[in-house]
């Protein structure tokens, strides 16, 4: 029997598979497909303080083995979300993670404080890397000082553990990760989407009203793996890896590169029960390779 559990230090998860924010709705939508208890944890759609409409359509465009999205983080606002969480919490004992968004540092803080201490909330994931929100796509996670300032401020104000989600659109990912660690992050997740673009030749316009969009899916996996490996080599807190994961084999590669757990994103859209298949594949591959537990593998890349 292989042991799939992973330890983030402040919490143990029964397995390393965590559906990623924005690709798992509010969890409930997956109840027709599987029991949420099977997951390591799951992350709700990103939330701002107030209700948001999101961007005008089109909001997605397929690219070779990838997906560009410019959804624009629509949502009901934090008060409505609290009700949803309380409802979802009834259907599962799996840890629930909130994806905290903000247009300003103050908004991040307000949202984080609002959910702080809720027994239904296991971790606050700070989405300091959403490329759609500000014009040109810049975000706090593209600046080590901004990252430090923001994470520090939130860490000082909340007691719920925080996971800081990084952006890949930087020269030196480790510098950002180290800033987050020094500011008190309990763990780090990466990567959010890569800045991309799509054009419509006929109208001579960008496909997305926002011009740029975020690339996710299998296309980015080799890039994400490199980023996770770099960060894991440079921080001492747990790293939660993601980017283009579609198989159990992919998960084990991220863990070998140094991730303690992983998030599953775009593939949830294509195959609702992907996470469950992936958990099964992790088990099978571990048995095949005679890996008794995941700790044995984490960061054991021989370079």
């Amino acid at each position, binding site marked *: 029997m292989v042991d799939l559990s992973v330890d983030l230090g402040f919490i143990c998860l029964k397995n390393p598979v965590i559906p990623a924010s924005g*690709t*798992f709705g509010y969890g409930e939508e997956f109840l027709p497909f599987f029991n949420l208890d099977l997951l390591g944890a799951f992350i709700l759609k990103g939330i701002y303080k107030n209700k948001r409409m999101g961007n005008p*359509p089109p909001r997605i465009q*397929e690219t070779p083995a990838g997906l560009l999205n410019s*959804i624009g983080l629509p949502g009901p606002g934090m008060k409505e979300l609290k009700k949803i969480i309380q409802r979802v919490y009834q259907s599962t004992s799996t840890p629930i993670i909130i994806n905290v968004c903000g247009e300003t540092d103050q908004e991040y803080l307000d949202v984080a404080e609002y959910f702080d201490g809720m027994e239904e909330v296991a971790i606050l994931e700070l989405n300091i890397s959403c490329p759609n929100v500000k014009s040109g796509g810049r975000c706090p996670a593209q600046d080590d000082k901004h990252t430090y300032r923001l994470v520090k401020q939130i860490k000082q104000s909340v007691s719920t553990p925080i996971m800081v989600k990084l952006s890949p659109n930087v020269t030196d990912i480790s510098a950002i990760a180290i800033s987050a660690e020094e500011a008190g992050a309990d763990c780090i997740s990466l990567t959010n989407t890569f800045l991309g673009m799509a054009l419509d030749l006929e109208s001579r316009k960008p496909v997305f009203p926002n011009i740029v969009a975020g690339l996710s899916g299998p296309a980015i996996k080799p890039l994400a793996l490199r980023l996770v490996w770099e960060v894991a080599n440079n921080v001492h807190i747990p790293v939660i890896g993601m980017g283009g994961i579609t198989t159990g084999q992919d998960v084990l590669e991220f863990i070998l590169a140094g991730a303690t757990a992983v998030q599953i994103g*775009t593939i949830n*859209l294509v195959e609702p029960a992907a996470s469950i298949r992936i958990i099964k594949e992790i088990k099978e591959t571990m048995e095949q390779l005679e890996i008794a537990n995941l700790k044995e593998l984490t960061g054991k890349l021989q370079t």
Partner: protein
Amino acid sequence: MRDDICNIVENIQIQGEYYLLKIHSEYISARAIPGNFIMISVSSTMEPLLKRPFGIFETDPPYIWIYYQVVGKGSRLVSEFKPGDKISVLGPLGNSFPPVTNQSILMIAGGRGIAPIHFAIKKYQKENKISLIYGARSKHNLNLLDLLKPLTLQVLLLYSDDGSIGKRGNVTTDLRKTIQKSGISITFSCGPDNMFKSIYQVTRELKTRDYASLEALMGCGFGICYSCVIQTRKSGYQKVCTDGPIFDMDEIAW
């Protein structure tokens, strides 16, 4: 709603880029109602990544039929499916046309829009009087006539842009007259966006209830990605996949 590996039973080229696909799915065929759609994975590789949405043309347990048009990469791959191929199918998805009995329903289909309309006629013809207006670009696109023959239709009006079959014109050419003459109390329609707009101009004026089966770019089909939204008059963006695909036309902010 289930995501299953299903067997392809038949894939018939009706004419040009139009095909009928027969899929074995006990689960979906037993549950689907008119308006419902499915998401089909078109490739066993990572490219294209997303499933494609197709309305249900008919259920014939344990089978379902899809009527589709090849318009791009994904639908071209569907046209290459062979009997025995196994593909992943998610469904049934979406809402349905409103329950209606003892009424004169006018069905309006443009091109491949006949898919959900065909299914609706099958189900509603027992308890309602059905008329159908069916339009296409030319004769070559109006290619399901044989399949429409067994249906019980009060009125069947065909239009083509070039007049090569039926009347020259489009589905709205005689719409007002038809609604008034046939005592239509409600319309169900499916077709391209500009068709909806012209239909709605008439139905709004005549105060005829008007339900449309809309299309949108879909990332997931089951409500999690928020990519398929349409602007409504009162409720902001609504998801075509779970709030639709059938909408009361009065709700849409055209």
